[in-house]
């Protein structure tokens, strides 16, 4: 029965496909006299990493709006084209391809996550287009690709900050618990790799699922070796569950978290269990506590007030990655006339750029450009942050 009609379905489908392809391939020419600079953004605006992508998108729109209000760059307006990856590498690849080939952007900001960044990097290399990632993983800039930069602090620096604190307290044994995704895995690798250098022994390294409801089993296992500190590597909400579990089990062990939870949301989620937790964070969380002499203070205050005025939500450190990226790119666009090689060189030669996430000094051998001072250690006390030393 189905066989007889095969001719017709085929024609039907082919005609649908033809219409569909016409729809897709319809040329989108928009010849304008001003010739704005088109820059692409690609963030995990929805999906599990939306806590990164959403503020990143907002921050990018914020800077672009400001630059245009101030008359653009060399008379060129900025035009931002932003796509959503949903945190999915395939979607990121499609999005970047669209930015490069259809929208003809001259530079790309994002993606938000390490796997999506790694997935689009081969295309960036081929297209030779300036690219500033907002993801944490160190694999993005090691080995160095001439076209690839990133503004988010590497987990190397975060681990170093924690270990420095532990070393000062003469800690010898730690237990690790990390989330079972790229962020947790990369953090775990760094924690284990740097441990010996700081005189630390990792007694147990456990993982938890991003959506786990209870981690007392993992904690019970970690507790066996009586570690002097527990380091947790994950993003909200998992670490908050862990903090609660530690409190409930009555474990009297100092808990360190990663910069992945560095937002007021974490304190809200963990409640009283957040007390005493220490973590490395960009200075944005403690902008108000910084001494006036701090070079970043002014930039931070401007960003915080602008962001909170425009979006009426509290700011997080994550949007800062995109804020810095667009600012650095905008500076590089000056006198470039849209030439990609010139932009790339200008980014690579960026020196002493005071940003939200730190002070950037890019060079041929460093495409992240941040020093350990980008992180400060904070402790949660009375439901707010307290600057450590």
């Amino acid at each position, binding site marked *: 029965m189905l066989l007889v009609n095969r001719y017709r379905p085929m024609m039907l489908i082919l005609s649908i496909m033809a219409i569909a392809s016409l729809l897709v391939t319809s040329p989108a020419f928009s010849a304008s006299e001003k010739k704005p600079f088109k820059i692409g953004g690609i963030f995990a605006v929805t999906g599990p990493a939306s806590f990164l992508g959403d503020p990143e998108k907002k921050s990018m729109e914020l800077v672009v709006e400001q630059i245009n209000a101030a008359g653009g760059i060399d008379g060129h307006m900025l035009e931002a084209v932003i796509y959503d990856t949903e945190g999915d590498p395939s979607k990121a690849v499609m999005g970047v391809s669209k930015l490069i080939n259809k929208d003809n952007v001259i530079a790309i900001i994002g993606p938000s996550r390490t796997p999506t960044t790694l997935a689009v990097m081969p295309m960036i290399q081929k297209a030779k287009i300036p690219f500033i990632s907002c993801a944490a993983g160190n694999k993005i800039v090691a080995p160095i690709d001439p076209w690839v930069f990133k503004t988010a602090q590497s987990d190397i620096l975060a681990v170093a900050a924690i270990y420095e604190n532990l070393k000062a307290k003469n800690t010898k044994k730690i237990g690790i618990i990390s989330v*079972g995704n790229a962020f947790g895995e990369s953090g775990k690798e760094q924690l284990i790799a740097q441990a010996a250098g700081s005189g630390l022994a990792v007694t147990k390294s456990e993982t938890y699922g991003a959506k786990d409801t*209870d981690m007392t089993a993992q904690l019970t296992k970690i507790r066996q070796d009586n570690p002097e500190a527990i380091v947790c590597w994950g993003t909200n909400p998992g670490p*908050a569950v862990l903090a609660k579990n530690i409190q409930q089990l009555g474990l009297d062990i100092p808990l360190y978290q990663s910069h992945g939870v560095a937002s007021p949301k974490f304190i809200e989620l963990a409640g009283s269990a957040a007390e005493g937790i220490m973590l490395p964070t960009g200075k944005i969380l403690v902008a108000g506590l910084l001494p006036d002499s701090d070079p970043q203070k002014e930039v931070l205050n401007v960003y915080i007030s602008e962001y909170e005025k425009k979006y009426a939500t509290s700011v997080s450190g994550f949007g800062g990655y995109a804020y810095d990226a667009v600012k650095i790119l905008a500076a590089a666009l000056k006198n470039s006339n849209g030439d990609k090689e010139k932009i790339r060189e200008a980014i690579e030669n960026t020196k002493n750029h005071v940003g939200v996430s730190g002070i950037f000094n890019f060079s041929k051998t460093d495409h992240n450009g941040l020093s350990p001072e980008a992180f400060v250690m904070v402790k949660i006390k009375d439901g707010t942050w307290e600057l450590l030393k």
Partner: protein
Amino acid sequence: MELIPWPELHAMDQSIMQEILQYLFSGITNGAIYAVIAIGFSMLYNSTDLINFAHGEFVMLGSLCMVTFFGSMHLPLVPAIILTIICVAIAGLVFERLAIRSVKHPEPIVLIIITVGASIFLRGLGMIIWGKDAYSIPSFSSHPPLDIAGAKLLSQSIWIIVIFLVASVGLQLFYKKTLTGKAMEANAISKRAAWIVGIPSKLMVMLAFGLSTAMGGLAGVIIAPITMSSYDMGTMLGLKGFCAAMLGGLGSLWGALIGGFLLGILEALGVGFVSSGLKDATAFVLLLFILYVRPGGIISSADANRF
């Protein structure tokens, strides 16, 4: 092999016992959650031969409604719970009326896609209503954890187990003692026969849907204080609950209970003695094992689909 002096051996024994006890408590807490979700699956399958892939999303709805009623609006505990369950049950009824009942040819594959579509829809709806953030609410009571032989049983775990027991005894009484419950069971055994003796089959299916999603909502309510609620929390919970239901025997209330607790406890022991990275695999390895060895589940119903 070295001989371990007696007192030390004794101490080691004790610490291992304490550890195992702690794993058991962890397992029981998670197990009770899986069991409540599994009951929802089983009840629905019993009455309608349908597996609702959106069930995890109803758990999410329950959890987030609880955040709104109990966390933000500060309603007292019991009204908040009741209101949440009513809301989720209504959502379930609407889903049944608009989507499931409109299906002309209820083949499993069509129903699977429709419920998967519903789960995506509900997740999207949750994201629009509650945003992308996670929320937490305080425990139902602020007792310190119970200390039993050195292992801690969280107060919320006790709440979970008590609420779970009340719900399952309530359901059992409903099925066995009330006319409506008996009618539902009759309808589950044979729609046609039930129809002949005058049981409104459509109403029974709707009721089953309402009850099942209400159980999903209840699961959401009890886990809201121990975990963080967000729009995307449902999928994994739904799948785990599903494994529990299969493990115990799809369609059986007590099967769901046994399956849930077994899964929870084995997961916790797996973390303790195998690897925490493979924790999520436990559920699915068990699922395959039971399907291959005894596809009807531990409490085997007569008509396991296998030949």
